[in-house]
Protein backbone atom coordinates (compact mmCIF):
# COMPACT_ATOMS: atom_id res chain seq x y z
CA UNK A 1 0.00 0.00 0.00
CA UNK A 2 1.40 3.37 -0.97
CA UNK A 3 0.54 6.21 1.41
CA UNK A 4 3.17 8.79 0.42
CA UNK A 5 2.03 12.07 -1.07
CA UNK A 6 3.94 15.06 -2.35
CA UNK A 7 3.21 18.69 -1.55
CA UNK A 8 5.62 20.84 -3.52
CA UNK A 9 9.04 19.35 -2.84
CA UNK A 10 7.81 17.98 0.45
CA UNK A 11 7.34 14.23 0.67
CA UNK A 12 4.88 13.12 3.34
CA UNK A 13 4.84 9.50 4.48
CA UNK A 14 1.07 9.73 4.53
CA UNK A 15 -1.52 12.42 3.82
CA UNK A 16 -2.57 13.14 7.43
CA UNK A 17 -1.28 16.36 8.96
CA UNK A 18 -2.27 18.35 12.01
CA UNK A 19 -4.00 21.72 11.63
CA UNK A 20 -2.19 24.81 12.82
CA UNK A 21 -3.28 26.06 16.22
CA UNK A 22 -4.88 22.81 17.25
CA UNK A 23 -1.72 20.82 17.93
CA UNK A 24 0.32 23.38 19.82
CA UNK A 25 4.04 23.01 19.10
CA UNK A 26 3.72 19.23 18.81
CA UNK A 27 4.95 18.53 22.31
CA UNK A 28 1.49 18.94 23.87
CA UNK A 29 0.13 15.85 22.13
CA UNK A 30 3.36 13.87 21.97
CA UNK A 31 2.18 11.77 24.93
CA UNK A 32 -0.80 10.55 22.91
CA UNK A 33 0.45 10.49 19.36
CA UNK A 34 3.70 9.16 17.99
CA UNK A 35 4.67 12.20 15.93
CA UNK A 36 6.70 9.95 13.67
CA UNK A 37 3.53 8.38 12.38
CA UNK A 38 2.04 11.64 11.12
CA UNK A 39 2.30 12.92 7.57
CA UNK A 40 3.43 16.29 8.87
CA UNK A 41 3.27 18.39 12.01
CA UNK A 42 1.95 21.91 11.49
CA UNK A 43 2.57 24.21 14.42
CA UNK A 44 0.64 27.15 15.85
CA UNK A 45 0.97 30.33 13.80
CA UNK A 46 4.10 32.36 14.49
CA UNK A 47 4.94 36.01 13.98
CA UNK A 48 8.25 37.86 14.07
CA UNK A 49 7.58 39.11 17.59
CA UNK A 50 5.55 37.43 20.34
CA UNK A 51 1.82 38.16 20.53
CA UNK A 52 -0.23 38.25 23.63
CA UNK A 53 -3.50 37.34 21.96
CA UNK A 54 -7.04 38.20 23.03
CA UNK A 55 -8.39 38.31 26.56
CA UNK A 56 -10.47 35.35 27.74
CA UNK A 57 -13.04 33.91 27.21
CA UNK A 58 -11.45 32.77 23.98
CA UNK A 59 -13.54 29.73 23.15
CA UNK A 60 -17.17 28.76 23.11
CA UNK A 61 -18.84 25.61 21.98
CA UNK A 62 -21.52 25.83 19.27
CA UNK A 63 -23.65 23.10 17.68
CA UNK A 64 -21.16 20.51 16.40
CA UNK A 65 -18.51 23.22 16.35
CA UNK A 66 -16.61 25.79 18.33
CA UNK A 67 -15.65 29.42 18.04
CA UNK A 68 -12.14 30.51 18.95
CA UNK A 69 -10.67 33.95 19.33
CA UNK A 70 -7.15 33.12 20.45
CA UNK A 71 -5.95 36.22 18.67
CA UNK A 72 -2.85 34.55 17.29
CA UNK A 73 -1.09 34.37 20.66
CA UNK A 74 2.38 33.01 20.04
CA UNK A 75 5.87 33.07 21.48
CA UNK A 76 7.41 34.63 18.37
CA UNK A 77 9.78 33.08 15.87
CA UNK A 78 12.99 33.53 17.88
CA UNK A 79 11.72 31.79 21.00
CA UNK A 80 10.16 29.08 18.86
CA UNK A 81 13.51 28.36 17.20
CA UNK A 82 15.27 28.29 20.53
CA UNK A 83 12.74 26.58 22.78
CA UNK A 84 10.47 24.45 20.65
CA UNK A 85 12.26 23.51 17.47
CA UNK A 86 14.87 21.28 19.21
CA UNK A 87 12.11 18.97 20.43
CA UNK A 88 10.48 18.79 17.01
CA UNK A 89 13.83 18.15 15.31
CA UNK A 90 14.01 14.82 17.13
CA UNK A 91 11.31 13.47 14.86
CA UNK A 92 11.54 12.28 11.35
CA UNK A 93 8.29 13.95 10.36
CA UNK A 94 8.27 17.03 8.14
CA UNK A 95 7.66 20.18 10.12
CA UNK A 96 5.45 22.84 8.60
CA UNK A 97 5.66 26.23 10.24
CA UNK A 98 2.53 28.34 10.05
CA UNK A 99 3.24 32.08 10.13
CA UNK A 100 1.65 35.48 9.61
CA UNK A 101 2.42 39.17 9.70
CA UNK A 102 0.66 42.49 9.90
CA UNK A 103 2.33 43.90 6.78
CA UNK A 104 3.85 42.50 3.61
CA UNK A 105 7.22 43.34 5.04
CA UNK A 106 6.54 41.35 8.21
CA UNK A 107 5.50 38.34 6.13
CA UNK A 108 8.67 38.59 4.11
CA UNK A 109 10.93 38.95 7.12
CA UNK A 110 9.24 36.06 8.91
CA UNK A 111 9.65 33.82 5.86
CA UNK A 112 13.29 34.83 5.50
CA UNK A 113 13.98 34.08 9.14
CA UNK A 114 12.32 30.64 8.92
CA UNK A 115 14.02 29.60 5.69
CA UNK A 116 17.24 27.71 5.84
CA UNK A 117 16.67 26.71 9.45
CA UNK A 118 17.51 23.07 9.96
CA UNK A 119 14.38 21.11 10.82
CA UNK A 120 11.82 23.35 9.10
CA UNK A 121 10.57 21.71 5.95
CA UNK A 122 7.77 23.91 4.72
CA UNK A 123 5.97 27.16 5.42
CA UNK A 124 2.25 27.68 5.70
CA UNK A 125 1.28 31.32 5.22
CA UNK A 126 -1.82 32.25 7.14
CA UNK A 127 -3.46 35.04 5.18
CA UNK A 128 -6.84 34.20 6.52
CA UNK A 129 -7.14 34.48 10.26
CA UNK A 130 -10.40 36.31 10.87
CA UNK A 131 -9.66 37.17 14.47
CA UNK A 132 -7.33 40.10 14.08
CA UNK A 133 -9.13 43.34 13.71
CA UNK A 134 -6.57 45.45 11.95
CA UNK A 135 -7.13 46.08 8.26
CA UNK A 136 -4.88 43.20 7.33
CA UNK A 137 -7.63 40.62 7.00
CA UNK A 138 -7.69 42.02 3.48
CA UNK A 139 -4.62 39.86 2.72
CA UNK A 140 -6.96 36.92 2.43
CA UNK A 141 -10.02 38.49 0.85
CA UNK A 142 -8.65 40.59 -2.00
CA UNK A 143 -6.97 38.58 -4.79
CA UNK A 144 -4.61 41.40 -5.76
CA UNK A 145 -3.31 41.78 -2.25
CA UNK A 146 -3.02 38.02 -1.91
CA UNK A 147 -1.01 37.90 -5.11
CA UNK A 148 1.32 40.60 -3.87
CA UNK A 149 2.00 39.19 -0.43
CA UNK A 150 2.42 35.62 -1.68
CA UNK A 151 4.69 36.79 -4.48
CA UNK A 152 6.84 38.75 -2.05
CA UNK A 153 7.24 35.75 0.23
CA UNK A 154 7.89 33.45 -2.71
CA UNK A 155 10.88 35.53 -3.72
CA UNK A 156 12.61 35.07 -0.38
CA UNK A 157 12.11 31.37 0.33
CA UNK A 158 12.94 28.08 -1.33
CA UNK A 159 10.91 26.10 1.14
CA UNK A 160 7.68 24.53 0.03
CA UNK A 161 5.18 27.36 0.39
CA UNK A 162 1.61 26.55 1.36
CA UNK A 163 -0.91 29.40 1.36
CA UNK A 164 -3.77 28.97 3.78
CA UNK A 165 -6.98 30.41 2.43
CA UNK A 166 -9.84 32.10 4.23
CA UNK A 167 -13.35 30.74 3.65
CA UNK A 168 -14.84 34.17 4.36
CA UNK A 169 -14.94 35.10 0.69
CA UNK A 170 -17.39 35.12 -2.19
CA UNK A 171 -15.13 33.18 -4.55
CA UNK A 172 -12.45 31.03 -2.99
CA UNK A 173 -11.27 29.68 -6.33
CA UNK A 174 -10.27 33.22 -7.28
CA UNK A 175 -8.17 33.53 -4.13
CA UNK A 176 -6.56 30.16 -4.79
CA UNK A 177 -5.65 31.19 -8.31
CA UNK A 178 -4.10 34.38 -7.02
CA UNK A 179 -1.95 32.36 -4.63
CA UNK A 180 -0.99 29.82 -7.29
CA UNK A 181 -0.14 32.50 -9.84
CA UNK A 182 2.09 34.18 -7.27
CA UNK A 183 4.10 31.01 -6.85
CA UNK A 184 2.51 29.07 -4.00
CA UNK A 185 3.40 25.37 -4.06
CA UNK A 186 0.09 24.40 -2.48
CA UNK A 187 -2.98 25.88 -0.86
CA UNK A 188 -4.60 24.73 2.36
CA UNK A 189 -8.22 25.32 3.33
CA UNK A 190 -10.41 26.05 5.10
CA UNK A 191 -9.38 28.29 7.90
CA UNK A 192 -12.14 29.17 10.36
CA UNK A 193 -15.35 30.98 9.38
CA UNK A 194 -16.13 34.16 11.27
CA UNK A 195 -18.93 33.68 13.75
CA UNK A 196 -20.32 34.99 16.99
CA UNK A 197 -22.30 33.90 20.02
CA UNK A 198 -24.12 35.95 22.65
CA UNK A 199 -25.00 35.14 26.24
CA UNK A 200 -28.64 36.18 26.34
CA UNK A 201 -28.68 36.73 30.09
CA UNK A 202 -25.66 39.01 30.35
CA UNK A 203 -26.31 40.36 26.81
CA UNK A 204 -22.58 40.16 26.22
CA UNK A 205 -20.67 38.34 23.50
CA UNK A 206 -19.52 34.93 24.71
CA UNK A 207 -16.04 35.76 23.38
CA UNK A 208 -14.19 38.74 24.78
CA UNK A 209 -13.18 39.52 21.19
CA UNK A 210 -16.90 39.58 20.15
CA UNK A 211 -16.31 37.48 17.01
CA UNK A 212 -14.28 34.32 16.57
CA UNK A 213 -13.52 31.59 14.09
CA UNK A 214 -15.88 28.66 13.65
CA UNK A 215 -14.31 25.21 13.28
CA UNK A 216 -15.30 21.61 13.80
CA UNK A 217 -17.73 19.19 12.13
CA UNK A 218 -20.34 21.94 11.63
CA UNK A 219 -18.23 23.54 8.89
CA UNK A 220 -17.27 20.36 7.07
CA UNK A 221 -19.84 20.63 4.23
CA UNK A 222 -18.54 24.14 3.52
CA UNK A 223 -14.91 23.00 3.59
CA UNK A 224 -15.54 20.07 1.27
CA UNK A 225 -17.35 22.32 -1.21
CA UNK A 226 -14.52 24.86 -1.19
CA UNK A 227 -11.84 22.21 -1.65
CA UNK A 228 -13.80 20.89 -4.60
CA UNK A 229 -14.06 24.37 -6.14
CA UNK A 230 -10.39 25.15 -5.55
CA UNK A 231 -9.02 21.84 -6.75
CA UNK A 232 -10.76 22.35 -10.07
CA UNK A 233 -9.37 25.87 -10.37
CA UNK A 234 -5.67 25.34 -9.67
CA UNK A 235 -3.05 22.81 -10.66
CA UNK A 236 -1.13 22.86 -7.36
CA UNK A 237 -1.96 20.43 -4.54
CA UNK A 238 -4.73 21.24 -2.11
CA UNK A 239 -4.62 20.41 1.59
CA UNK A 240 -8.14 19.93 2.90
CA UNK A 241 -9.37 20.61 6.40
CA UNK A 242 -12.40 21.74 8.36
CA UNK A 243 -14.31 19.40 10.61
CA UNK A 244 -12.42 16.20 9.91
CA UNK A 245 -13.18 13.82 12.76
CA UNK A 246 -12.94 10.41 11.11
CA UNK A 247 -11.25 8.68 8.21
CA UNK A 248 -14.53 8.92 6.34
CA UNK A 249 -14.39 12.72 6.58
CA UNK A 250 -10.77 12.77 5.41
CA UNK A 251 -11.59 10.58 2.41
CA UNK A 252 -14.49 12.89 1.58
CA UNK A 253 -12.01 15.78 1.35
CA UNK A 254 -9.63 13.72 -0.78
CA UNK A 255 -12.37 12.68 -3.18
CA UNK A 256 -13.25 16.37 -3.47
CA UNK A 257 -9.67 17.03 -4.57
CA UNK A 258 -7.41 17.23 -1.54
CA UNK A 259 -3.94 15.65 -1.82
CA UNK A 260 -3.54 15.72 1.95
CA UNK A 261 -5.72 16.58 4.91
CA UNK A 262 -5.31 18.19 8.31
CA UNK A 263 -7.03 17.23 11.54
CA UNK A 264 -7.87 20.21 13.74
CA UNK A 265 -10.63 20.56 16.33
CA UNK A 266 -11.04 16.77 16.40
CA UNK A 267 -7.80 16.47 18.39
CA UNK A 268 -9.54 18.27 21.24
CA UNK A 269 -12.27 15.62 21.43
CA UNK A 270 -9.91 12.81 20.76
CA UNK A 271 -6.16 13.33 21.24
CA UNK A 272 -5.39 10.41 18.92
CA UNK A 273 -7.71 11.69 16.17
CA UNK A 274 -4.97 12.19 13.57
CA UNK A 275 -3.66 8.64 14.00
CA UNK A 276 -7.19 7.23 14.06
CA UNK A 277 -7.90 9.02 10.78
CA UNK A 278 -4.74 7.55 9.27
CA UNK A 279 -5.58 4.03 10.42
CA UNK A 280 -9.10 4.42 9.06
CA UNK A 281 -7.76 5.50 5.67
CA UNK A 282 -5.59 2.40 5.54
CA UNK A 283 -8.54 0.17 6.42
CA UNK A 284 -10.63 1.82 3.75
CA UNK A 285 -7.89 1.26 1.19
CA UNK A 286 -7.65 -2.39 2.14
CA UNK A 287 -11.42 -2.83 1.99
CA UNK A 288 -11.67 -1.15 -1.38
CA UNK A 289 -8.51 -2.60 -2.83
CA UNK A 290 -6.91 0.80 -3.27
CA UNK A 291 -3.14 0.53 -3.79
CA UNK A 292 -2.14 4.17 -3.93
CA UNK A 293 -3.67 6.78 -1.69
CA UNK A 294 -3.13 9.37 -4.41
CA UNK A 295 -5.75 7.66 -6.51
CA UNK A 296 -8.40 8.82 -4.05
CA UNK A 297 -7.60 12.49 -4.70
CA UNK A 298 -10.19 14.05 -6.98
CA UNK A 299 -11.96 10.71 -7.36
CA UNK A 300 -15.42 12.22 -7.10
CA UNK A 301 -17.74 10.85 -9.76
CA UNK A 302 -20.13 13.55 -10.91
CA UNK A 303 -23.35 12.94 -12.76
Amino acid at each position, binding site marked *: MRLEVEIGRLRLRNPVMTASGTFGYGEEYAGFVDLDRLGAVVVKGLSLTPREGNP*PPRIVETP*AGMLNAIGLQNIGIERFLKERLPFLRRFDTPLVVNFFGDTVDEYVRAAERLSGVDGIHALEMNISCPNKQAGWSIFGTDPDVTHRVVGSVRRVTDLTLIVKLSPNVTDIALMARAAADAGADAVSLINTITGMAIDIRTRRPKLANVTGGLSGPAVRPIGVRMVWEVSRAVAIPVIGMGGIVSAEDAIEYMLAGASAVAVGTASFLNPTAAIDVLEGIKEFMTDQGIEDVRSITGGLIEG
Partner: protein
Amino acid sequence: MNRLFKAEVVSNTHVSDTLSILKLSPAGAEAAPAPGQFYMVRVSETLDPLLRRPFSILRWDEASLEFLIKVRGRATALMRSLKCGEELDLLGPLGRGFPPPPPGATPLIVAGGVGIASVYPLIGSLARDAHVFYGAPGMRELCLIDEIRGHTERLHISTDDGSLGLKGSVVEALAGFLDTSGVTNPVVYACGPEGMAEALIGMLTERGVPGYLSIEERMACGVGACLGCVTRTVSGYRRVCREGPVFDVRELSR
Protein backbone atom coordinates in the same frame (compact mmCIF):
# COMPACT_ATOMS: atom_id res chain seq x y z
CA MET B 1 -0.07 4.64 33.07
CA ASN B 2 -3.01 5.62 31.01
CA ARG B 3 -4.11 9.17 30.40
CA LEU B 4 -6.83 8.49 27.83
CA PHE B 5 -9.23 5.85 29.02
CA LYS B 6 -12.81 4.69 29.33
CA ALA B 7 -14.57 4.45 32.65
CA GLU B 8 -17.90 2.99 33.64
CA VAL B 9 -20.44 4.67 35.88
CA VAL B 10 -20.56 2.78 39.18
CA SER B 11 -22.92 5.16 40.92
CA ASN B 12 -24.42 8.57 40.36
CA THR B 13 -25.72 10.01 43.61
CA HIS B 14 -27.87 13.11 43.51
CA VAL B 15 -26.82 14.98 46.63
CA SER B 16 -28.95 18.08 45.98
CA ASP B 17 -31.11 19.68 43.28
CA THR B 18 -28.07 20.49 41.21
CA LEU B 19 -25.18 18.53 42.70
CA SER B 20 -24.34 14.90 42.14
CA ILE B 21 -21.41 12.64 42.86
CA LEU B 22 -20.39 10.52 39.93
CA LYS B 23 -18.33 7.45 40.72
CA LEU B 24 -16.49 5.86 37.82
CA SER B 25 -14.53 2.69 37.46
CA PRO B 26 -11.74 3.00 34.88
CA ALA B 27 -11.37 0.15 32.42
CA GLY B 28 -7.63 -0.29 33.12
CA ALA B 29 -4.92 0.93 35.41
CA GLU B 30 -4.70 4.69 35.27
CA ALA B 31 -2.35 7.27 36.70
CA ALA B 32 -3.12 8.48 40.21
CA PRO B 33 -4.09 12.14 40.33
CA ALA B 34 -2.84 14.77 42.74
CA PRO B 35 -5.14 17.11 44.68
CA GLY B 36 -6.27 19.95 42.42
CA GLN B 37 -5.77 18.09 39.16
CA PHE B 38 -8.60 17.58 36.73
CA TYR B 39 -9.90 15.32 33.97
CA MET B 40 -11.38 16.22 30.59
CA VAL B 41 -14.57 14.20 30.25
CA ARG B 42 -16.29 13.36 26.99
CA VAL B 43 -19.93 12.98 27.84
CA SER B 44 -21.28 11.76 24.55
CA GLU B 45 -20.05 9.96 21.47
CA THR B 46 -22.16 12.24 19.32
CA LEU B 47 -21.03 15.64 18.07
CA ASP B 48 -23.39 17.51 20.38
CA PRO B 49 -22.07 18.39 22.92
CA LEU B 50 -18.80 18.42 21.00
CA LEU B 51 -16.03 19.26 23.42
CA ARG B 52 -14.78 17.56 26.55
CA ARG B 53 -15.51 19.25 29.87
CA PRO B 54 -13.05 19.72 32.74
CA PHE B 55 -13.83 18.33 36.22
CA SER B 56 -11.66 18.31 39.32
CA ILE B 57 -10.94 15.00 40.94
CA LEU B 58 -12.92 14.72 44.17
CA ARG B 59 -11.83 11.32 45.49
CA TRP B 60 -10.03 8.31 44.14
CA ASP B 61 -8.63 4.92 44.98
CA GLU B 62 -7.18 2.09 42.89
CA ALA B 63 -10.55 1.09 41.53
CA SER B 64 -12.47 4.32 41.19
CA LEU B 65 -12.57 8.02 40.51
CA GLU B 66 -15.20 10.36 41.90
CA PHE B 67 -16.35 13.72 40.66
CA LEU B 68 -18.70 16.27 42.13
CA ILE B 69 -20.85 17.65 39.34
CA LYS B 70 -22.93 20.78 39.39
CA VAL B 71 -25.48 21.15 36.62
CA ARG B 72 -24.60 24.26 34.71
CA GLY B 73 -25.53 23.56 31.09
CA ARG B 74 -25.97 20.77 28.62
CA ALA B 75 -23.05 18.47 29.36
CA THR B 76 -23.49 18.61 33.11
CA ALA B 77 -27.23 17.95 32.73
CA LEU B 78 -26.39 14.85 30.69
CA MET B 79 -23.90 13.79 33.36
CA ARG B 80 -26.54 14.11 36.05
CA SER B 81 -28.74 11.68 34.17
CA LEU B 82 -26.05 9.04 33.59
CA LYS B 83 -27.00 5.55 34.67
CA CYS B 84 -24.86 2.76 36.10
CA GLY B 85 -23.03 0.85 33.43
CA GLU B 86 -22.83 3.78 31.01
CA GLU B 87 -19.36 4.58 29.76
CA LEU B 88 -17.48 7.86 29.64
CA ASP B 89 -14.25 8.76 27.90
CA LEU B 90 -11.70 10.47 30.17
CA LEU B 91 -8.43 12.29 29.63
CA GLY B 92 -6.26 12.93 32.66
CA PRO B 93 -5.12 13.60 35.29
CA LEU B 94 -4.18 16.99 33.89
CA GLY B 95 -2.73 20.26 35.08
CA ARG B 96 -0.78 21.29 38.15
CA GLY B 97 -2.45 20.64 41.48
CA PHE B 98 -1.88 22.20 44.88
CA PRO B 99 1.72 22.26 46.15
CA PRO B 100 2.38 20.89 49.64
CA PRO B 101 2.39 23.49 52.43
CA PRO B 102 5.79 24.72 53.59
CA PRO B 103 6.91 23.17 56.92
CA GLY B 104 5.27 24.84 59.88
CA ALA B 105 2.55 26.53 57.88
CA THR B 106 -1.12 26.32 58.79
CA PRO B 107 -3.17 25.32 55.75
CA LEU B 108 -6.44 27.15 55.37
CA ILE B 109 -8.64 25.35 52.89
CA VAL B 110 -11.27 27.56 51.29
CA ALA B 111 -14.12 26.44 49.06
CA GLY B 112 -17.00 28.28 47.46
CA GLY B 113 -19.85 26.09 46.23
CA VAL B 114 -18.83 23.31 43.88
CA GLY B 115 -15.24 24.54 44.34
CA ILE B 116 -15.18 22.08 47.22
CA ALA B 117 -14.46 19.37 44.64
CA SER B 118 -11.03 20.76 43.84
CA VAL B 119 -9.83 21.24 47.45
CA TYR B 120 -11.57 18.20 48.94
CA PRO B 121 -8.60 15.85 48.42
CA LEU B 122 -6.50 18.25 50.52
CA ILE B 123 -8.80 17.85 53.48
CA GLY B 124 -7.89 14.20 53.90
CA SER B 125 -4.17 14.82 53.56
CA LEU B 126 -3.77 18.13 55.43
CA ALA B 127 -6.72 18.24 57.74
CA ARG B 128 -4.88 17.39 60.92
CA ASP B 129 -3.80 20.98 61.39
CA ALA B 130 -5.84 22.64 58.65
CA HIS B 131 -8.94 24.79 58.90
CA VAL B 132 -11.64 24.42 56.30
CA PHE B 133 -13.76 27.38 55.19
CA TYR B 134 -16.70 26.34 53.11
CA GLY B 135 -19.31 28.74 51.82
CA ALA B 136 -22.24 28.77 49.42
CA PRO B 137 -25.31 30.88 48.68
CA GLY B 138 -27.43 28.64 50.93
CA MET B 139 -27.22 25.40 52.88
CA ARG B 140 -28.72 23.43 50.00
CA GLU B 141 -25.62 24.15 47.94
CA LEU B 142 -23.35 22.61 50.56
CA CYS B 143 -22.50 18.93 50.49
CA LEU B 144 -20.07 16.38 51.94
CA ILE B 145 -20.31 18.15 55.33
CA ASP B 146 -20.29 14.92 57.31
CA GLU B 147 -17.31 13.61 55.41
CA ILE B 148 -15.39 16.82 56.05
CA ARG B 149 -16.26 16.68 59.74
CA GLY B 150 -14.89 13.13 59.73
CA HIS B 151 -11.50 14.65 58.92
CA THR B 152 -11.53 17.83 60.95
CA GLU B 153 -13.39 19.68 63.65
CA ARG B 154 -12.15 22.95 62.27
CA LEU B 155 -14.86 23.45 59.69
CA HIS B 156 -16.15 27.01 59.27
CA ILE B 157 -19.33 27.11 57.27
CA SER B 158 -20.83 30.29 55.87
CA THR B 159 -23.83 30.95 53.66
CA ASP B 160 -24.91 34.13 51.97
CA ASP B 161 -28.43 33.71 53.32
CA GLY B 162 -27.39 32.55 56.77
CA SER B 163 -29.24 29.24 56.42
CA LEU B 164 -26.20 27.45 57.89
CA GLY B 165 -23.14 28.71 59.72
CA LEU B 166 -22.01 32.31 59.51
CA LYS B 167 -24.10 34.64 57.38
CA GLY B 168 -21.91 36.14 54.70
CA SER B 169 -19.32 35.15 52.16
CA VAL B 170 -16.59 32.61 52.74
CA VAL B 171 -14.01 35.28 51.98
CA GLU B 172 -15.41 37.44 54.77
CA ALA B 173 -15.31 34.44 57.11
CA LEU B 174 -11.68 33.79 56.18
CA ALA B 175 -10.73 37.46 56.58
CA GLY B 176 -12.32 37.52 60.02
CA PHE B 177 -10.38 34.43 60.98
CA LEU B 178 -7.09 35.78 59.67
CA ASP B 179 -7.61 39.06 61.50
CA THR B 180 -8.69 37.64 64.87
CA SER B 181 -7.41 34.08 65.32
CA GLY B 182 -3.77 35.03 65.55
CA VAL B 183 -2.87 32.12 63.28
CA THR B 184 0.76 32.36 62.28
CA ASN B 185 2.15 31.28 58.96
CA PRO B 186 -1.16 30.69 57.17
CA VAL B 187 -1.25 29.38 53.62
CA VAL B 188 -4.49 29.36 51.71
CA TYR B 189 -5.73 26.62 49.33
CA ALA B 190 -8.83 27.80 47.55
CA CYS B 191 -11.31 27.16 44.80
CA GLY B 192 -14.59 28.87 44.05
CA PRO B 193 -16.60 30.90 41.58
CA GLU B 194 -15.14 33.90 39.79
CA GLY B 195 -16.58 36.51 42.18
CA MET B 196 -15.18 34.73 45.20
CA ALA B 197 -11.82 34.26 43.50
CA GLU B 198 -11.55 37.98 42.79
CA ALA B 199 -12.49 38.91 46.35
CA LEU B 200 -10.06 36.34 47.76
CA ILE B 201 -7.15 37.56 45.64
CA GLY B 202 -7.77 41.12 46.82
CA MET B 203 -8.15 40.13 50.45
CA LEU B 204 -5.03 37.95 50.55
CA THR B 205 -2.92 40.43 48.61
CA GLU B 206 -3.94 43.17 50.99
CA ARG B 207 -2.88 41.10 53.97
CA GLY B 208 0.20 39.61 52.34
CA VAL B 209 -1.08 36.10 53.05
CA PRO B 210 0.25 33.47 50.62
CA GLY B 211 -2.20 31.22 48.86
CA TYR B 212 -2.98 28.95 45.95
CA LEU B 213 -6.13 29.30 43.95
CA SER B 214 -7.66 26.91 41.45
CA ILE B 215 -9.05 28.84 38.47
CA GLU B 216 -11.83 27.97 36.03
CA GLU B 217 -11.69 28.93 32.41
CA ARG B 218 -13.41 27.50 29.35
CA MET B 219 -11.28 24.75 27.84
CA ALA B 220 -11.11 22.94 24.53
CA CYS B 221 -8.06 20.66 24.58
CA GLY B 222 -7.06 20.48 28.26
CA VAL B 223 -3.45 19.75 27.33
CA GLY B 224 -2.05 23.15 26.43
CA ALA B 225 -2.41 22.95 22.67
CA CYS B 226 -5.21 25.37 21.84
CA LEU B 227 -4.38 28.38 24.02
CA GLY B 228 -8.07 28.71 24.69
CA CYS B 229 -8.03 28.63 28.48
CA VAL B 230 -5.66 31.43 29.38
CA THR B 231 -6.01 33.62 32.44
CA ARG B 232 -4.24 36.90 33.02
CA THR B 233 -1.27 36.69 35.41
CA VAL B 234 1.42 39.16 36.37
CA SER B 235 3.60 37.55 33.70
CA GLY B 236 0.96 37.68 30.95
CA TYR B 237 -1.58 35.10 29.85
CA ARG B 238 -1.04 31.61 31.23
CA ARG B 239 -2.86 28.41 30.27
CA VAL B 240 -5.14 27.24 33.06
CA CYS B 241 -4.91 23.65 31.83
CA ARG B 242 -1.10 23.53 31.88
CA GLU B 243 0.39 26.22 34.11
CA GLY B 244 -2.77 25.86 36.27
CA PRO B 245 -5.50 25.22 37.24
CA VAL B 246 -3.80 26.06 40.55
CA PHE B 247 -1.92 29.34 40.59
CA ASP B 248 0.01 31.15 43.27
CA VAL B 249 -2.21 34.04 44.32
CA ARG B 250 0.70 36.43 43.86
CA GLU B 251 0.73 35.57 40.16
CA LEU B 252 -2.94 36.45 39.91
CA SER B 253 -2.83 39.90 41.53
CA ARG B 254 -4.25 41.71 38.56
